[in-house]
């Protein structure tokens, strides 16, 4: 037990000055604090992906020298990626596979080869066009690949549900 030895008695008359602190309630309190903190802690971290919605606002102002990327879902596991400059298609790739994860891996490697364009600051924005049969989770996964490649000015093209 914790104790503080203040001074020993030399003669039998004086009382011992050893003061003892009872640590048991203190340990109980600390244990309860730890349990409370662990139980009330938020273990799942929620983050955010910023999207600039250019339709109806002046968010995307492009110059004639800058490129625009267009990522269009043509199916549940098929995407069409194109780079445009002044409205003209400069590069175009069609990616298709049995699973979207494989398509996204191809997409990642494809846009890595184009990275000098946005590293030079020549990419104004990347617009993603969803499709009816593509779940929202897959759309976010595509945006995640773009953000992973330092493309941050992202937009989503509104498409008709019908």
């Amino acid at each position, binding site marked *: *037990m*914790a104790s503080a030895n203040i001074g020993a008695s030399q003669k039998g008359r004086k009382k011992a000055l050893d003061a003892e602190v009872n*640590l048991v309630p*203190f*340990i109980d309190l*600390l*244990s309860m*604090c*730890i349990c409370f*903190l*662990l139980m*009330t*802690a*938020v273990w*799942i*971290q*929620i*983050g*955010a*992906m*910023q*999207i*600039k*919605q*250019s*339709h*109806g*606002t002046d*968010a995307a102002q492009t110059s004639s020298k800058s490129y625009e990327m267009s990522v269009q*879902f043509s199916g549940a596991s098929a995407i069409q990626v194109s780079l445009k400059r002044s409205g003209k298609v400069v590069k175009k790739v069609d990616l298709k596979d049995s699973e979207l994860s494989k398509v996204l891996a191809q997409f990642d490697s494809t846009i890595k080869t184009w990275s000098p364009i946005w590293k030079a600051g020549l990419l104004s924005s990347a617009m993603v066009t*969803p*499709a*009816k*049969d*593509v*779940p*929202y*989770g*897959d*759309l*976010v*996964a595509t*945006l*995640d690949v773009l*953000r*992973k490649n330092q493309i941050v000015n992202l937009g*989503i*093209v*509104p*498409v*008709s*549900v019908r």
Partner: protein
Amino acid sequence: MNCGENTLHPKSFTRHLLARNHKKKSYKRAVVVGLMLTSMVDMFSLLVIFLLQTFAASPELLIVTKGVTLPTAITGRELKDAPVLSISNEGIFLDQKLVGKTDVLLKKPEPLIEKLDALRELWQKTHPGATFVGEINLQAHRDIASSVVSQVMGMLPSSHYGSIQLAVYGGASSE
């Protein structure tokens, strides 16, 4: 003492007593085991301080609406305090309040736009002189068709909400 013990005669009474005493000592062992509580208290205190610092620094800004499972992403950044628009299978919610069914609101978006405008006006009243940035947190169930989410997102710029933050699980690094 041992030296003295060796010098004694093997059959002497003193040696016999010493041997008996030694025997007794070897049989009896201490029953009370001492536990160092100080180091345990130190460890507990450090653990409490660590947990307090870890969890108190990141307040929960977003309450995930019932029936919404957010998609996961690795590039998510820190959430900002803004109105929360939720799209679930049950309908569209604005700050946890049901605005209407998704298919109905996609055809007639007026109730949603009115509520968004009211929120913007309230913000402008509470922040006089400040420019409205138009930030909104959007949380949608991951299995909902992306075209539905895109259509809802398309309505937001008309109410001057141009900076949309898609809520995702994971990430939350401060960029």
